[in-house]
């Protein structure tokens, strides 16, 4: 019985601890739910404690068996697993290393294809904004010469030339489970020296280039500055 109390409490502490890093896992909009959730867990732990110390009411007759509900050990251990894993493995947002089985897309999922992007001034657009702008525009050539100032993590694969990399972000519609990586190609002489998954700030101009039979806008970078990973690494629909 005490194990149940500990488990519930552990869940509570775990959730509280995470309030900073919790944005790596879930949506901004629902993060506030963790506080009431943790409170409820605390109350449940108290209820279990009362039951085990015999404080609580036990109905007579047929109902007697009903309150002595047995949760199997297997179930208990399984529920402890998220806490264990969460504590042991340092919280990491999805980054370049999560892309071992997926590719950075150059088109955004449907939920993000918003024409509101046109209202965002060029200097403030992020990776996703640019990609949506490209998708919604009839003529990519109109982007040549425009200034770009974006942040993202570095992603390169074997197909990239020594001066190419992708500045990428993970796009999340609801939660981490549906995260998709998108990226903008960047041309910069020092690309080879950049570490995979390093967060950078890229400033440059768009030029049209032909890559793999496609003519796409590529950022010709004037400056690539390494930065600290942001507190909120994922991009959400505007």
């Amino acid at each position, binding site marked *: 019985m005490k194990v149940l109390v500990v488990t519930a409490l552990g*869940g509570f502490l775990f*959730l509280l601890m*995470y309030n900073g890093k*919790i944005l*790596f*896992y*879930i*949506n901004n909009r629902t993060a506030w739910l*963790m506080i*009431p*959730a943790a409170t*409820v867990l605390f109350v*449940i*732990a*108290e*209820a*279990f404690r*009362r*039951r085990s110390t015999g404080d*609580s*009411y036990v*109905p007579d007759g*047929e*109902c*007697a*068996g*009903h309150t*002595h*509900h*047995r*949760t*199997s*050990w*297997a*179930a*208990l*251990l*399984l*529920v402890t*697993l*998220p806490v*264990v*894993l969460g504590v*042991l*493995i340092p*919280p990491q947002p*999805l980054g370049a*290393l*999560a892309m*071992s*089985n*997926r590719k950075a897309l150059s088109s955004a999922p449907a*939920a993000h294809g918003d024409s509101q992007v046109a209202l965002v001034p060029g200097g403030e657009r992020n990776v996703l904004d640019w990609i949506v702008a490209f998708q919604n525009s009839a003529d990519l050539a109109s982007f040549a010469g425009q200034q770009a100032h974006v942040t993202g993590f570095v992603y390169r694969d074997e197909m990239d030339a020594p001066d190419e990399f992708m500045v990428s972000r993970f796009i999340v*519609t*609801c*939660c*981490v*489970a*549906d995260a*998709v990586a998108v990226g903008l190609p960047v041309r910069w002489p020092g690309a080879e020296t950049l570490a995979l998954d390093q967060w950078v700030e890229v400033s440059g101009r768009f030029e049209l280039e032909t890559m793999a039979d496609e003519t796409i806008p590529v950022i010709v970078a004037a400056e690539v500055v390494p930065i600290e990973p942001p507190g909120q690494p994922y991009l959400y629909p505007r």
Partner: protein
Amino acid sequence: MSGCQTKRLDKFRHQGYKEASNLQGALAVSLDADLAKTNRSQRLGLALLLLGLVSGSLVLCHLPPAVVVSSFSSFQTFVTVFLGIFIEATPLLLAGSLASGFINIYVDEETLHRFVPQQPVLATLMGAAMGFFFPVCECGVVPFTRSLYRKGVPLSMGIAFILAAPVINPIVILSTYTAFGWGPVFWGRIALSFFIAVSVGLVFSTARPQDVFSEAMQAGCQSCGPGSAEGSPTQRFWLAMSSAGDDFLDMGHYLVIGAMLTAFIQTVAPQSTLLGVGQGPLSSVLVLLWLAFLLSVCSTVDAFLALAFANTFTTGSILAFLVFGPMVDIKSSLMYLSIFKRRAVVYLILLTFTMTLAVTLYVNLNLGW
């Protein structure tokens, strides 16, 4: 033990059910002997697994980075996605547990009984509509329906309720909205579930009750029904909370299994494979129907698991997962057997399966969702 309970006990012993948490308290106490044996070996097995995981990750942290970077980073991605699903789901799972805990202790179906219409079509419609008001997950719906039947609710109404309630209740609606927003998935889930629940209920309205109800039900066994606990308000409150806690732990461990499997698939399976299967109008539906059956995850949170497939699988298959899963899966099938005969449960599964398959296949082939 009363004669009623022995009969039921023998029936379950024959069929080898060991899931104590699905049976009623009285039976759980009598199955102690079997459980003790299974529990000891289960405990040992899981302790070893946990120990292995802990030591494994500690070791990995100290190995030279180049050696294990790819496998460790995959594991890290797996953990991130797994925890993402689990943490996002926890508040809603708690909400569902609280609801079922309170329904268990506070709600009495006597009042419901007075409003049951006689006409079968209306009764079935009402049964499905009742689902909107009861925030029960598939686990909670079975004991509740059992009590409803004992109060004399018609067969078709109970069936419509049992199929609809896990899907069209407020908490599930909220979680579906959180995961998918207002869209075809959201509305489709509600509409299709309602439609299937009512149709299957109507099919069963032509059957004779004695052919459908299990022997235990027909023997008129009384059990600890909801609302029969007495005590001061404070006592009832703590009783409700501990009942909620039990439900949370029960549903929680299925969530962990489901989230782990989903996160695993998402981390390990190459995107091209997922797309290959996921874009086929028939293959996507069949795969997700099968997965929905396998992962007996509470309907209040299964939307978050479905998200992992949102970008690679067809909308029709996601819909199939979200409609079929709450109605029929391994855990709920076992629970249905406590109310209905085996043959009736098989018909229930087949009917729901075929209808879901037909409609979602149509969606994939004809509607560009």
